[in-house]
């Protein structure tokens, strides 16, 4: 294909817009989303429930619900200098693309495994469907991956899903996710619905995996501490748009968007006392008829007439830190004043 990408970019999303057709009208779930993921990098999509994080990630493997419609944009995927346009893959190419190139570990791994097949069978199914028929080799690779995610490989490999606990299933799914050495792994809320100790174990496992295997991660979370710990880059998603994008330290310590700032001040930290916690007033907008101008303006303390009329662009700032806000300066001022 003719598109050219910088050699270190694994995935590039351009101007992606997705609507859901419903009885009440079109829900604009994702609007003009653009970002790039470098190989080996971990990127976090953070935002409230319903902000469109999952929609973006489902679009990456074309696993959107039937009523979804991609109205604009393209998704380019590159491996070994070969570029594929994900939205133009035919069904056979798409099937091969899935899991081989881009694997997705879904939210709630509790039911991710077929209850009537052994874990072994499900690893073999995955390998076989992608043309890998040597069961002994699959077994060897699977056992080493199960070891990597700190499970008892022999026992888990020959177990049925119901014989594993929630945390074990989540880790087994992570191992299955990297079975075919994909370049990109999408993790949708990898630690939600797990108890705090299991969450810790999953994070440690993920860090181990990243050290030992070479893959990029896109993970979706509303857990900011997880994002801070794992991500190289962070994208804040609000009402279907990326409103801030930058390095993890930039976004968390020098946020340029009031929404990100609001998310950060609504989470307790070890250093600050409880009374500094603030919630963001209001609730996420209706995406059938989103607000005109900046979509965050009805909830924003800095909003003025400009915000109600014009939508701010995702303008480049220092060192590739982007934010879609008209009043970055005032935000920075106010932060200085508080400290």
């Amino acid at each position, binding site marked *: 294909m003719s598109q050219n990408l910088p050699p270190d970019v694994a995935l590039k999303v351009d101007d992606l817009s997705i609507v859901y057709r419903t009885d009440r009208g079109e829900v604009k779930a994702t609007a003009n989303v653009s970002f790039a993921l470098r190989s080996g990098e971990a990127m976090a999509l953070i935002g409230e429930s319903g902000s469109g994080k999952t929609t973006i990630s489902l679009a990456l493997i074309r696993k959107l619900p039937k009523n979804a419609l991609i109205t604009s944009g393209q998704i380019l995927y590159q491996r070994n200098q070969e570029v594929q346009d994900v939205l133009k893959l035919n069904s056979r190419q798409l099937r091969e693309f*899935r899991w081989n190139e881009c694997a997705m570990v*879904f939210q709630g791994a509790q039911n991710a495994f*077929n209850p009537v*097949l*052994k874990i072994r069978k499900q690893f073999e*199914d995955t390998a076989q469907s992608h043309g890998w028929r040597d069961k002994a080799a699959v077994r060897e690779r699977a056992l080493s991956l199960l070891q990597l995610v700190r499970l008892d490989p022999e026992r888990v490999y020959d177990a049925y899903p*119901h014989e594993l606990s929630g945390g074990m299933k989540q880790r087994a799914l992570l191992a299955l996710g990297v079975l075919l050495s994909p370049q990109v792994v999408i993790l949708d809320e990898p630690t939600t619905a797990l108890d705090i100790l299991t969450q810790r174990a999953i994070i440690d496992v993920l860090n181990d995996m990243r050290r030992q295997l070479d893959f990029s991660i896109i993970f979706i979370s509303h857990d900011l501490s997880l994002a801070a710990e794992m991500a190289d880059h962070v994208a804040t998603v609000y009402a279907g748009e990326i409103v801030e994008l930058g390095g993890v330290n930039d976004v968390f310590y020098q946020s340029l968007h009031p929404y990100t700032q609001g998310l950060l001040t609504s989470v307790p930290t070890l250093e600050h006392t409880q009374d500094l916690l603030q919630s963001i007033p209001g609730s996420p907008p209706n995406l059938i008829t989103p607000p005109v101008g900046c979509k965050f303006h009805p909830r924003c303390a800095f909003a003025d007439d400009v915000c109600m009329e014009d939508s701010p662009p995702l303008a480049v700032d220092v060192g590739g830190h982007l934010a879609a806000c008209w009043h970055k300066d005032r935000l920075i001022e106010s932060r200085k004043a508080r400290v």
Partner: protein
Amino acid sequence: MTDFQLLDAGQDALEQALSPKRKLVPAPVENFYKNYYVRVFAQAILTIWAVLTVTFFLVRQMPGNPIDVLIEQILTQEGISYQEAYDRVAASFNFDPDATLFDQYLDYIRDLLHLDLGTSITSPGTRIIDEIARFLPWTLFAVGSGFLISFVLGVILGMTMAYYRDSALDHAMSLVSSFFTGVPNYIWGLLIIIGPGISWNWFDVGAARGTYDPGLTPGLNAAFIGSAIEHALLPIITYVLATLGSWMLSMKSSTTSVLNDDYVNVAEARGLKDRRIITAYVGRNAMLPLFAQLSISIGFVLGSGVVIEEIFVYWGFGHYLFQAITVRDYTSVQGAVLILSSTFVFSNLFADLTYGLLDPRVRVTGEK
């Protein structure tokens, strides 16, 4: 002893007395009964015994008594004394009509424990086991094929409906299958005879009677097998039509729910081949609830043979049972009911025992 020691000792004694470790039943017996297979088998036998007992007393409550009828006949025809006629009938029936009902019952159970189903009352000397062996295979053949065809078709069509749910195809098939489910099997039988059989003359209704054409020797020859299939065709079609709809609807609803399950979604994201997803991920899980229904339906279909076989004059097991009831042949009815209830109970048992092969979650493990 201090007070405390006394208290302790008393408590120990109390605990020992109440301890669940004290067994009323010796350990081997208890362990034997704890064995899952032993337990379900014992329950099956108990169920069959209960059915047989109820049947034994019920058939004797039916109006009309074959013995009195026969004694009456001999009396009027031969003009002998009542006692003579009575003795003759008693001798030829090989049973003592004077014995109390309860004694007869004990006799029956004793014979049964020796695997002896007895002889027919109305045609003395005919062993019931031979009669059943003569009639049952035909029914097993007809019901079995009808059942299998209906199940396989229902599963395939039901899955198709679920995959194309809310399309015109789904709506049309739902309508048809609801209609099929609503019409009872005897109506289907009559419709087949009246429509294609008599009005349109597609086949000769008279020639379709029986289980194979007269003059053929039963055996592994083409003419006989062809004829047997031909004669079974109408009952088979009736069984299929009467049960297909419910299989389709059940399969559709269970497939629809499985299609919404996470693991199907994940299987697609894993890039599995469609055929693999349809069979091992969707099909196998969607069939689990149907498998439980299957065993129950086997019993019902066998029972419905009584009506269907009468309609088509197909000489199978249902025909045999019907004839036995008509002439109040108590022992034959008992024999037939024994077979019927055993089939029902054991097919359920079989389903219970094999369900674990399909669904590992309910598998009974040796330990734990």
